[in-house]
């Protein structure tokens, strides 16, 4: 069954496409925005902006560390650089440069990492960003966003430009179902309740949100009513929404297309441990690199499916 079908969702664009189109659309409204690329603008979709505003687009070649520090310098000169690459190369190759050229001096730089997760498929593990959210969250002051669909990515792109200070936006390669056909009220740090229920709450983001909604639809047929929260911002985290869900539903499942270590699950668990200890289960890539393969097969093999999310809900209910 296709992604989002159980939940009655229609297929939409990849979030990287929504980002590229939004950035171009916002180009005139935000004249200080410039892009800095590392020879992958056709993958990240900054090329859509670059074609419309060629004088405001820089391509430094295959040189991510340099790219990030150049962006830091552009920000120091009053520009609002949007610097994009594959999530893995951006975070992993330029980690210290993000730290010293952007986060520590609090530069207004917008990091965008595409090709997140294992759903990129055939290119394989060397190209998969599965540790990026953890790494981005380590920087004090960094806003970290993982939108799930086209419309919310459009909103996230504008929110990122409005926000003063460093941000990280995670996008994906594959087409994703539309969660918000009529748009959404996207605010940094504010979760969106996509569906209500009293028996448990699934907190998800990115590609795992439509999968969570499919799982919720499947569980409803068995009489289990699940709340689903779109936790599109991992940092700052919407603690109030998490505490409310824990108090009202008593059980939490966190689902993300990321390693176990340091992602949304860790962030949610920290909040729960401190405020409202309730049973929690986690659906994620675990503690392993993946492999090459077709996206659907990989999601199956690495346990990111409607079935695994539904099973996690049942498990957490019985604890």
């Amino acid at each position, binding site marked *: 069954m296709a992604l989002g079908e159980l939940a009655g969702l229609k297929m939409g664009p990849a979030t990287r496409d929504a980002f590229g189109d939004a950035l171009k659309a916002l180009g005139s409204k935000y004249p200080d925005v410039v892009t800095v690329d590392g*020879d992958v603008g056709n993958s990240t979709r900054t090329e859509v902006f670059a074609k419309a505003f060629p004088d405001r687009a820089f391509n430094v*070649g295959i040189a991510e560390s340099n790219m990030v520090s150049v962006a830091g310098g552009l920000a120091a000169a009053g520009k609002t650089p949007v610097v994009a690459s594959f999530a893995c190369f951006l975070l*992993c*190759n330029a980690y210290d440069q993000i730290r010293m050229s952007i986060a520590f001096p609090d530069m207004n730089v917008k990091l965008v990492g595409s090709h997140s997760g294992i759903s990129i498929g055939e*290119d394989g593990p060397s*190209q998969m960003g599965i540790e990026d959210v953890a790494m981005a969250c380590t920087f004090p002051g960094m806003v970290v966003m993982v939108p799930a669909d086209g419309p919310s990515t459009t909103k996230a792109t504008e929110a990122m430009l409005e926000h003063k200070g460093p941000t990280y936006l995670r996008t994906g390669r594959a087409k994703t179902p539309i969660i918000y056909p009529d748009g959404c009220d996207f605010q940094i740090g504010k979760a969106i309740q996509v569906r209500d229920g009293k028996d448990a709450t699934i907190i998800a983001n990115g590609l795992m949100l439509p999968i969570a909604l499919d799982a919720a639809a499947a569980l409803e047929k068995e009489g289990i009513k699940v709340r689903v929260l779109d936790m599109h911002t991992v940092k700052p985290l919407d603690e109030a929404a998490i505490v409310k869900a824990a108090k009202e539903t008593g059980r939490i499942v966190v689902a993300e297309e990321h390693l176990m270590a340091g992602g949304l699950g860790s962030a949610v668990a920290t909040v729960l441990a401190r405020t409202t200890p309730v049973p929690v289960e986690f659906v994620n890539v675990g503690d392993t690199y993946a492999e090459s393969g077709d996206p659907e097969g*990989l999601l199956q093999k690495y346990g990111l499916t409607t079935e695994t999310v539904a099973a996690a809900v049942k498990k957490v209910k019985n604890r």
Partner: protein
Amino acid sequence: MVAERKKASIAELEAKAKVLRRHIIEMTTEAASGHPTSSLSAVEVVTALYFGGFLNVDPKQPHWPDRDRIILSKGHACPVLYSAMAEAGFFPTSLLLTLRKLGSVLEGHPNLKRLPGIEASTGSLGQGLSIGVGQALGLRMDKRSSHVFVIIGDGEMGEGQVWEALATAHKYKLGNLTAIIDQNGYQQTGAAKDVLDQTPFADKLAAFGWHVQTIEGNKMAPVVEALEKATAITDRPTAIVSQTQKGFGILPILEEEHDLNYHGKPLSKKLAEKALALLKG
């Protein structure tokens, strides 16, 4: 190096290069993804290394400590490596058609943990030469006569790490290390001279203290000659600037498609048939 080098003739090597090119087209079209043109430009170099007697490896004992090492730093071009490995007997050629499929050891980028004969897991550009420096240092410490060959893309030379590795190799006078720059003129988003012009490579590499040769890299004779020279020099690291064409072997098709880069795109079934006709043995 091998004491008694098995000398394939230039004609034999050229025939083998054609076989590799056909494999590259077939496997990427079957996978419906991958980087055929990046693979095709490096065919002569890889063919000469594996079948011209330069790369002393044994498919029966892929971890034999005295083997030579080959690192494909531009890991996205792995179809050329897999094709050569299959022809050399590391695995059956039938496996080539499993490229990039779930469960296959032939991943989208080389993975040392899954495929014996792969010397470095690559795919994040810029790291292969540094890994090669480390291997060359370690092999020398153990007094092994193994040689390390690293194949780097011209766009990949944009990574600062490559230049750091060049400096390290010079410092330690790594005569057992050869870097081959596959100067095919293109990178992902366009011509290398437009994205980031890093020429003249030869002058820059020479300034870093390396022995440098610049050759026509899609012609077998100069490739073989350059490798002979490179492996004979033992007092410093050697570089070969291999001037090639991205997609060499199927250029008429790329011209028709108005895309001489054709980066990261497999040929359609129809174009693949045309390509295989061009590459008939």
